[in-house]
């Protein structure tokens, strides 16, 4: 009998709420109050998340965000700035001593990315894990991933790019030199791909989520059982949203 983990779908949350939910699930799981969890989610409005160590105003054009109605948030995970618009985002929360999770952080990235790759395969897309934290297909990035370990618990979240508007993405990010903006856009277009680009047709979040869910079930030999956030998690998420992720001092701290 395979182990049962919880499966969550939460659509259309703000950036601050999404990051607050990931942290709430991490805390609740670390206290043994909720099962190990795989969540799939979307962002509304579209948002930029930056890595924990990044400088917000170094990376993000805040004025442009306001103008285009794009949200922004600092993650508790490291890594780079990501524009979340047409994508499927996942997170997994599991104790770091779980037998399925390698102790070594780099190995655990590979393992969890294996689930994303199996999900992509279910969609008809072959892909490869490229350390440290990317998954590529046809030589181009289709997924970025970031992991933290707190309270003896692993949280990894990441993206599967369903469709990408590189011009829009770059209008929201600070480029070191305006003169090279066009070249950077051209470079990134060569380096980034999407499910739509590979399959030649658009696949929505709803049409891709089941394939991704099965990818996690196959990789970890578990059954993902649909569930919902507990009241405890919802309260924690409200608290983290207010005190942290929607808070100016958190987002601007670096």
């Amino acid at each position, binding site marked *: 009998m395979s182990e049962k983990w919880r499966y969550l779908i939460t659509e259309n949350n703000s950036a601050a709420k999404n990051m607050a939910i990931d942290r709430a699930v991490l805390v609740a799981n670390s206290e043994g109050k909720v099962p190990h969890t795989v969540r799939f989610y979307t962002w509304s409005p579209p948002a930029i998340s930056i890595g*924990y*160590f990044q400088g917000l105003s170094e990376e993000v054009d805040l004025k442009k965000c306001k103008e285009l109605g794009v949200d922004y948030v600092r993650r*508790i995970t*490291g*890594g780079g700035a990501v524009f979340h618009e047409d994508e499927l985002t996942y997170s997994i929360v599991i104790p770091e001593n779980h037998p399925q999770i390698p102790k070594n*952080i*780099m190995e655990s990235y590979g393992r969890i990315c294996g689930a994303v790759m199996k999900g992509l395969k279910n969609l008809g897309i072959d892909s490869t894990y490229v350390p*440290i934290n990317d998954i590529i297909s046809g030589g181009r990035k289709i997924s970025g991933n970031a992991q*933290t370990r707190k309270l003896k618990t692993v949280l990894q979240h990441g993206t599967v790019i369903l469709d990408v508007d590189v011009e829009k993405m770059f209008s929201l990010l600070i480029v070191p030199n305006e003169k090279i903006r066009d070249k950077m856009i051209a470079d990134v277009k060569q380096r980034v791909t999407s499910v739509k680009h590979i399959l030649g047709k658009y696949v929505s979040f709803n049409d891709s989520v089941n394939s991704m869910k099965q990818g996690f079930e196959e990789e970890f030999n578990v059954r993902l059982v649909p569930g919902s956030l507990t009241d405890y998690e919802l309260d924690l998420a409200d608290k983290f949203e207010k005190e942290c992720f929607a808070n100016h001092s958190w987002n601007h701290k670096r």
Partner: protein
Amino acid sequence: MNSKSVYKVPNGKLIKISLKYSDKNKQILDLRITGDFFAYPEEAIEILEKKLVNTLLNEKNLQQKIDDVIRENKIEFIGLNTEGLVTGILMCLK
């Protein structure tokens, strides 16, 4: 003196250093390390930044201090290492 550097760590990530230093003593007054790297635990970066204040800006001192802080706080960097940090910091002097 205030200075900044951007350095791509070989086989790693991009780090950006903002440095305030005494030109006379070649000593760190304030330091900010940003970038798209990973560090576990994340909060240790703030400890590292604080502990580097007053460190002399030469390779040997920086390396020793950074290695000490990494060991004392059990920091694990991914996409970044002591050499990368030292190089990034010293680039601010150029």
